[in-house]
């Protein structure tokens, strides 16, 4: 039988990665439900018309609202956002996955796209923070 504490602890050892655990799911519940609401065209329009006012309807933290307003996706992941939910936000902005994802890497879209065309980011050195391999 797998020990749940060991199972979860290992997730913190992956560089540059937030695993969507229960802890994150709980912190991000209202953030993700807000994002989900943008699947409806009428909500997308209301959000676009006044983002702040739309956000005020959700019991999110001020940090979460700010991070949505400035589209800081790394911060949103830290605050419990899940990428498939956050995708509804960048879909509303008309961005593709590549465009949105590149903003989390510190690269420009062009640099990111070139890296992908060259075979993607190597896992070497990015498997474990502790072991640095």
């Amino acid at each position, binding site marked *: 039988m797998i020990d749940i504490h060991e199972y979860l602890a*290992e*997730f913190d050892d992956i560089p540059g990665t937030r695993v969507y655990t229960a802890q994150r799911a709980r912190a991000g519940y209202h953030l993700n439900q807000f994002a989900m609401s943008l699947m409806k065209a009428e909500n997308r329009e209301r959000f676009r018309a006044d983002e702040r006012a739309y956000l005020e309807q959700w019991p999110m933290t001020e940090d979460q609202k700010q991070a949505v307003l400035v589209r800081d996706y790394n911060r949103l992941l830290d605050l419990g956002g899940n*990428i498939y939910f956050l*995708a509804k936000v960048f879909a509303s902005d008309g961005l593709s996955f590549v465009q949105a994802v590149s903003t989390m890497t510190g690269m420009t879209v062009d640099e990111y796209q070139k890296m992908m065309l060259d*075979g993607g980011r190597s896992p070497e050195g990015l498997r474990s923070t502790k072991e640095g391999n």
Partner: protein
Amino acid sequence: MAQITAGIACSHIPVLGFAHDQDKEGDPLFKPAFDGFRWTREWIRAEGRPDVVVLVYNDHASAFDMDIVPTFAIGCAETFPICDEGYGPRPVPEVVGHPDLAWHIAQSLILDEFDMTILNRLEVDHGLTVPLSMMYGRVDEWPVRVIPLAVNVVTYPPPSGNRCWMLGEAIARAVASFGEDLNVHVWGTGGMSHQLQGPRAGLINREWDNMFLDRLIGDTQDLRHVPHIEYLRETGSEGIEMVMWLIMRGALGRKTRCLHRHYHVPVSNTALGHLVLTPVDGTVPPSPTLEGNRAAPGH
């Protein structure tokens, strides 16, 4: 008697749905990805010819929000509408189900001690529709009926690899006890290596992916025991979708033969993998709990 005659593995990359819908399959950016499906498109119409596909996929915050997260859910409805994921619904035909077989499988799985969630209403997203487009191209209606089998791989923990393999075995037992003559495929979708989030986004692991493809062929059961952390470290945070391929693999029994294999990097953020397998020795253990687990030490 219904029979599982093939298993197909296939990534379900959204941008390939987009390229298909926009008639860009010949575009230099997409051509190498689509070229690997030419063989399959011919084979599936000439020889494969499934009546029904049990299509294992995951919902990407489309039909399910955080209010309800089922581990394994099976679609028993007559039809499954195409979901609007934020860019408008894909312009593809509605998916038609096979409620007779779906309910038969659902009932059998529950008696077999799988804790299924039954769905009588479900909108399907790219996870399910992109593989259909890859296999059949543009059609007025899908030439196959589909039983969606939705797996949670978004909220942790997803089911273990061993549990997925066991579910595949149970699906094979269920199909074999269905009275009507039906040619059934099981498809496993998602993967391969990709990470869509954080500073490590864009991770691709060609070597690991190909090891994974290798081990779906033949009689090894090694992949049952790959822990979640290995998918995460080696294949990126979204590589975990590959556990769904193990449901397909488990449904093919002890040994498989590979008819077709295709691997391409990259499509958008993702490594594309695709296999067409047939069962060689379709024997599956008679129950999930006793014999199934004797074959799977370590759990």
